[in-house]
């Protein structure tokens, strides 16, 4: 639930605002560089979240919050979720000619309606996603070519269900097995853990990766990473959302669900020079996220910020065509031009999403939206001081990371001053459209 609700409960809005950090989601196409950007914003010279993999990497919404010492907090899904997955996979395999589903295993563990939902899932168009989730959990790779019957067997082993002699079963990672059993024991409220995070320690890092991007993301409801960052200390919480736009990707469901159901006060769109993608727009419109954000819009406190990545690459391209301008000058020019492009696109998106809001307001919103070209990889390089790599942009300030950081800080600071009064006069029905 977004700020829209705060307005409704105006009585304690101020107190909520002063103690809770401002929560901002980071949304963009898979592979556009959201995680790299967040690493640069929060970790500065340290790489916190796993980035640079192939395929969509981030599998769970990952909350970055302020903490005195680095820590990892995990909240797992209740065991029913895992049983549902297993039950659906069994049906999927049985439908493809595999062995019969052992219904008796699930009668106690799942309600009739849960079983029905799982069966429906196994025959729906998105059944491919089921297999991906199962493969990720059991084999560690959603796109592996492991036969479904072996995945099914492996899944049963993980969930401590009997496996017949000769029934093929893929072997899961021992740590996944261990965690899976813990989740099963924790019961309906789910398992919660919090531990110190030491990124220099290989095991600690692997644990983080396994939950954010690896097999355990399937069992995880929420991953939080606490970090002693100045930016976060200013009263911010940043949520790295799985990228959208990759075909048949299980992760983007997480993003859509989050956009629809979670509480957040703003969004950072991350896009490349193509601008706002149809997949991002689709996720926004479907989740009705924009309606809620726009309801609290004001010039002083924009709830949308656009960060444009990979312009450093484009700047290099242009530099090759025009030797008389330096790459950094090209980068600055591109940033300028991009602002116009993005605002036009954003206006279009807003118009399609919010058909009842007067266009003048949408224009004003689009034109007041900060568009910041960022060069996160260069920023990391400038901090990292690696002799093998030469950054394209040669000064920290020109990477624009400090600028983005400043915009976010201002948002957080504004938040502390804001009271519960509505700043934009919109029709009441708009406010009622915010997600419930």
């Amino acid at each position, binding site marked *: 639930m977004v700020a829209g609700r705060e307005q409704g409960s105006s009585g304690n809005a101020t107190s909520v605002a002063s103690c809770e950090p401002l929560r901002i989601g980071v949304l963009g196409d898979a592979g556009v560089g959201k995680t790299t950007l967040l690493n640069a914003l929060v970790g500065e010279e340290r790489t916190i979240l796993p980035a640079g993999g192939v395929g969509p990497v981030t599998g769970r919404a990952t909350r970055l919050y302020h903490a005195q010492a680095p820590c990892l907090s995990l909240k797992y899904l209740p065991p029913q979720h895992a049983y549902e997955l297993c039950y659906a996979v069994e049906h999927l395999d049985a439908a493809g000619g595999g062995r019969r589903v052992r219904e008796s295993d699930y009668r106690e563990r799942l309600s009739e309606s849960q079983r029905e939902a799982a069966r429906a899932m196994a025959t729906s168009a998105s059944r491919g996603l089921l297999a991906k989730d199962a493969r990720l959990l059991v084999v560690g790779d959603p796109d592996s070519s492991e036969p479904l019957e072996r995945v099914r067997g492996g899944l049963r082993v993980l969930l401590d269900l009997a496996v017949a002699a000769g029934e093929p079963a893929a072997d899961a990672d021992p740590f996944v097995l261990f965690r899976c059993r813990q989740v099963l024991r924790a019961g309906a409220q789910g398992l919660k853990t919090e531990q110190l995070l030491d990124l220099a320690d290989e095991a600690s890092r692997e644990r983080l990766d396994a939950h954010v991007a690896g097999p355990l993301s399937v069992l995880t409801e929420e991953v939080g990473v606490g970090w002693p960052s100045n930016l976060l200390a200013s009263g911010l919480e940043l949520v790295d959302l799985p990228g959208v736009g990759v075909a048949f990707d299980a992760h983007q469901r997480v993003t859509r669900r989050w956009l629809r159901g979670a509480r957040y006060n703003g969004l950072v769109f991350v896009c490349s*020079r193509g601008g706002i993608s149809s997949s991002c727009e689709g996720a926004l419109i479907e989740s009705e996220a924009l309606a809620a954000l726009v309801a609290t819009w004001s010039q002083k406190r924009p709830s949308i910020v656009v960060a444009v990545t990979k312009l450093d690459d484009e700047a290099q391209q242009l530099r090759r065509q025009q030797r008389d301008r330096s790459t950094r000058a090209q980068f600055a020019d591109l940033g300028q031009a991009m602002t116009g492009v993005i605002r036009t696109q954003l206006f279009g998106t807003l118009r399609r999403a919010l058909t009842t809001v007067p266009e003048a307001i949408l224009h004003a919103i689009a034109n007041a939206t900060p568009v910041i070209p960022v060069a996160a990889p260069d920023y990391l390089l400038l901090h990292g001081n690696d002799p093998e790599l030469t950054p394209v942009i040669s000064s920290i300030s020109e990477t624009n990371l400090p600028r983005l950081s400043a915009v976010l800080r201002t948002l957080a600071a504004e938040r502390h001053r804001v009271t519960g009064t509505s700043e934009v006069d919109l029709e009441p029905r708009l406010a009622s459209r915010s997600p419930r």
Partner: protein
Amino acid sequence: MNDRSKAILDWYQGHVRAIVEEHSPERLSEFDRESQRVSELATRAAETVSICFLGNAAVGKSTLLNALVSGKDVLLPAGGVGPLTAQATSVEFAESPFFEANYQSKEKLWNVVFALECMQVANVGKHADAETLEKDYVGVLDKNARETLRLESDDSRVRVEDPSDERVRRSSSQKLLEWEKQARLLVTANQDSAAELPYLLDALRTAMGMKTRWGMTVHAEDEANIERLRNAIALTEAGKTFRAAIDLEAQDALAELKHHASGSLAPMIAKLRVGWPAELLAGGLTLVDLPGVGIASDVHKEVTHDWINANTRALVLVVDRAGVTESCTRLLTESGFFQRLLTAADDPASDPMSLFVAVTRVDDVARTRRHTDKTKRVREHFSDVAAELVPRMQGQLRQQLDALDVSSHELTGQRQHEVIKRVLAELQVFPVSATELQKIYADDEDAKPDLPDKESTNVPALGRALAAQAQSWKQRAAGREAETADNVRDRLHSLLKLTLAQWQDVNRAEEEALRLRTALDVHVAPLREELATLRGEFRASVKAMGSQSIDLLVEEALTAARKDMRKHVKPFRGYHYKTLQAAVRAGGVWDGARQINLPDKFADACEQPLVAIWGTQILERLRVETRDLANHYARLVEKVADWAGEQGAQIQADLVRQQRDAIRAEAKALERVGRDIVDDLREKVRKELHAAVSSVISSRCGQFISEHRHEGRGARDNMAELCDQLVDAVADGVRAKARERLKKNFENVEAEVKQHFRQMEDPIGAASDAIVARHEQRQKRSDAQRRKRVIETLESALAACPPDRGSFDFGDEDT
């Protein structure tokens, strides 16, 4: 055309055609047709092979193409903001570089200007203006076009209570917004410039030779753009293209190309062709850069869609490390590319199709990894990432092909799995870095490459694979050309030998001939009977394949289609009723937050099983039957030849063997029956079905609306129900069309088969005649003078025959 084919065709035209006309006139049309086919195949083999590049906007298609084609020159515009490529640009080989632009029609430009002027008039709000504006355009745009455009531009401004109406209107005003951008680009070369609409309109009027209306004059800095536009209009009016040589020595050699590809003229371009002296392209390869997909409300999507639709046989899917995007998958599915890819892999007789995947910016990932793991160099990370990407991309594509869901149809379902396996086994994935390659070329202090050499960027490997693909297709086409030419040569050769032998064979005494003939007739009597039975069986089974069975097969296909369609409309129940309402109003098509396109989807759903059935149930069986019959013919004739051999030297058994070989040659030709008809069928079925489906849907929707069932209580359920009913209505509606089309096709194939069998009307009689001519034939050939002349002609024709390629080889088909 290769030399041998040419020699064979020349030989036919120069020596043989007249002989065929004189001695076997019934076969003339057949040989004429076959030689025509050789020329056609030769033309195809000589054509360049086009390979399209498809990917999301800004993923780096143009950069990759540049790196492939021109190395360090930046040929195609790359590295700007927003989606850059607005039209398909093809790059082909040329010794001296050039580019050629086809412009949009003048009318298209008028449309844009008129619609914008209507909008402007409405902005100013004077009613009288609307009338005078109308007058300006009399004779320029026809009345209907004006009407529609005016309504669209007016509508975009009207605000109404019903939000779904608002959506419909906004989608048209989106178009106006885009048009305004185009006008800006045309006049000021900057689509985000601050120029006011009246200025843009007057500038465009100036360019088009119409008097100005808004009291503006063209600014000096825009004059060059207007001049360019004026030239473009003049050319398009004259039906000409713009062609310019690229002078590499010149200061800004590519400036004019830039004006076209991404500058002020971009909105005017319909097609852009670039010729470039690239080694890669020299073998007859053309690369096509398609506009990127995946940008919200992108108007260039259609261009891309059209290209992929139109018989694209090879495609490079350009993706980044995240993998294959929704937008690309949607396009490849909707345009039928995936489907065609699978069908082509399933039917070895059809032309092959290919899919390549290029993963761009792999160097970025490598650098990110280097940041966390300094024990390896960037180049080592690069090869790690590259190795991981290959199975990942194969896995992603497997899921997409699996999800195509032709599996609801049993016939294709059985094979689909196998076929997908085959397609994936042939899929080539190239993790590349075009920017690294360019850095290596550029050797710039400002940007040092992280990879050691050109080869390690994998771009050259991709280039080689594409060139090899083009080469193999050309070879295949050339192989088919050669095969057909040889077949023609062999058949002609047999015919000549046969005719010659007949003319030489008149020396026998009349009584002797009579005796032999009687003995022969006795011997062949049972063979004739057998032949009659075989023929009867053949006719019966062809007939069985025909009309009745087609009706059944169509039913089967429609059952599968219904299943597919149901599946498609099932989720509609969860859609917002406004979305459904908009779709129902627009005849089943709605492109809003949800994309609904019932005519396309339904036509697809019907087409796929129909074509599958045609290929597997009808054509395949017909091919088997005809080949069997032809082989039986050859066997029977062989028996006649055996008898002739037993009679000793007095008979030329060779002659009969010639005949048998001729039949074998025919049998081989029969294997090709229907090969060209599958693709043809797909095209026609699609077109006809689409029309039938659309009309069913729009009439049903119209009726539904006229009954006001789309409004008020229960509207959503009504509409969901309507969708269900549409499934059956469509299946019923296309039934007749499908039957008619398949029957027609069947008739065509049958005719083709008959044509082949015509010259084998009476193979045994012909063989008998070859052994011992009937009396009247002998009479005809007894004129010594004429005989001498004929034999001489025949001998000289045979002497001129291009040499045999070797004995018949039945095994080298399509390998």
